[in-house]
């Protein structure tokens, strides 16, 4: 076992992360073998769903041109040709709002995971690469971030910076950062033990060069899977923050916000909840499928193995 044992599991708040770190494919023979796994129905379904969502977010507003914030019709209409998803409690077109929500959800996913990615990779890389005191210090910091209740952190950040989507994204990014840091650190530690890193060292390569040329490319696989999984976590978190009124600001549409206001009408006007609920579920499902598929492809053992559980080789 190569990993020091002073860390907890790598699961992150509200996020699935059974990301295997054990033995990622580094040899060409393994790559060839795994190529066959591209025939992966779940992964392909995920890719299609995510692709559709991107398409809708980018081109939807040009195809369905109703303004999502405008009060265009009688309130609480059932679906009709004029309003295929009906209208909401203020008489806005639900379909236009769902389309706008697709943009929002992608933005939330991309930016908050982007923040976690940058912070988490930096922390994890420095920690795993230098080890020793740097590692202890950074990991204590990551421990603290982990142990602070995510909701508290998010509410405080929203309170400090003002409640809007930008700050909700910052909050979500910060909340999932420690998960990235842990996973990256684990992966880096493992890579550091490989012969090519030692030979690069022996050849006198600089720290920076080793990090960029040798370490980073070899932790790409777990990172990709991690990103897809946390994209869905981020979207769900935005929905939860919107429940508390701390997410996207009115009248702008976000799926979480729509779902929250639709709860009041769940009994009499179920359509209002069904569409944003489905939208969230489908997109989150898409990212999860994609993540699952990528794991199957990228992890030769098919086996996510468990978080901080030590490598069993």
């Amino acid at each position, binding site marked *: 076992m190569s990993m020091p044992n002073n860390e907890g599991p790598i699961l992150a708040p509200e996020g699935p992360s059974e990301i295997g770190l054990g033995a990622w494919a580094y040899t060409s023979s393994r790559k060839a073998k795994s190529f066959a796994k591209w025939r992966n129905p779940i992964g392909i379904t995920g890719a299609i769903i995510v692709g559709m969502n991107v398409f809708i977010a980018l081109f939807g507003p040009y195809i369905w041109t109703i303004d999502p914030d405008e009060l265009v019709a009688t309130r609480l209409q059932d679906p009709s040709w004029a309003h295929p998803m009906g209208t909401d409690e203020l008489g806005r077109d639900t379909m236009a709002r769902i389309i706008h929500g697709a943009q929002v959800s992608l933005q939330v996913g991309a930016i908050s995971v982007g923040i976690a990615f940058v912070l988490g990779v930096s922390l994890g890389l420095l920690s795993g690469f230098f080890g020793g005191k740097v590692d202890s210090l950074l990991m*204590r910091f990551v421990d603290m971030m982990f142990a602070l209740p995510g909701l508290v952190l998010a509410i405080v950040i929203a309170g400090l910076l003002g409640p809007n989507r930008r700050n909700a994204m910052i909050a979500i990014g910060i909340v999932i950062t420690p998960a990235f840091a842990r996973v990256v650190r684990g992966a880096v530690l493992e890579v550091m033990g490989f012969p090519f890193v030692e030979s690069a060292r022996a050849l006198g390569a600089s720290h920076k060069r080793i990090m960029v040329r040798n370490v980073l490319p070899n932790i790409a696989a777990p990172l990709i899977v991690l990103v897809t999984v946390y994209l869905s976590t981020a979207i769900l978190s935005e929905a939860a923050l919107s429940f508390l009124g701390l997410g996207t600001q009115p009248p702008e549409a976000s799926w979480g916000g729509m779902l929250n206001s639709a709860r009041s009408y769940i009994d009499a006007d179920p359509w209002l909840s069904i569409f944003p609920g489905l939208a969230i579920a489908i997109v989150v499902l898409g990212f999860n499928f994609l993540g699952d598929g990528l794991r199957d492809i990228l992890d030769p053992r098919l086996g996510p193995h468990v978080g901080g*559980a030590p490598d069993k080789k």
Partner: protein
Amino acid sequence: MGGYVLRRFFLTIPTLIGISIIIFFMVRLLPGDYVEILGGDFAASPEVKKAAQDQLGLNGSYAEQYWRWVSGILHGDFGFSFRNTEPVSDVLLHAFPITAELVFLGLLIAVVIGLPLGVLSAVKRDSKHDYAARVGGLIGVSVPNFWLATLLLLFTSRVFGWVPPLTYVPFYKDPIQNLSQFILPAISISVFTLAIVMRMVRATMLEVLGQDYVRTARAKGVKRNVVISRHALRNALIPVVTVVGFEIGILMGGSAIVEIIFGLPGIGNTLINAIFNRDYPVVQGATVLLAFIFIFANLAVDLLYGVLDPRISQE
């Protein structure tokens, strides 16, 4: 082993101190000082402000206040709630058992259902069961829990004309009322964890089933069921322990929304309300308690690894 445990234990102290500092300053940075809330229109007057600060123990520099708070904790005094002058330790003592029971039941449901489903899924890999379980698991992680809670309430009130009893009764006083109060919220928080348990058990089982010693055992003629129960299941318990340990920490604070929906006066509910009310001592106390639980649950998990997997020796 003893030395190792002790070392791990001491390592948590700086983490807890760090958290206490972070939360102490974070709540004070929030707009809407409690002195302003208390002083209302008069908050602008220096005398009123001073009097309110003295009353609340918000006088002196932040460093002094922090020191007063921490040294209080060391004497078992967490301060008192600004909003209702109740000792924070009492507030937490009331709220803690409720959330603890909720989380316990939620995790119990997750494990009792998730573990067998995961094993089944792995053993019958690529079968209909497997796909159904995997897709079901993914749906489980895709549904916001506030939404699920709402649907459950709507469903039971509409179909059965029933909602959970509203007044909290401890388990030892009336087990049936207690459990019927907790069942829906426990299901609401369990689904996410259930899905993760299932996926991780499946993955671990697949890995173990593919390993050399298992194949050897099979080749030697050991029965499939025996292999599964002897070797694979033991390994499958590791991810369960990991998830459960981790989710204890997350769900203790993360069940707040479900607690609010079901009107359970648990710790998450208390904490969210305390933040909204700017009740600093309660926020601080609850956060430190949650962090403590999180850290020790994870510590316990790490120690359990050693028990479950003899191959893991302690450094």
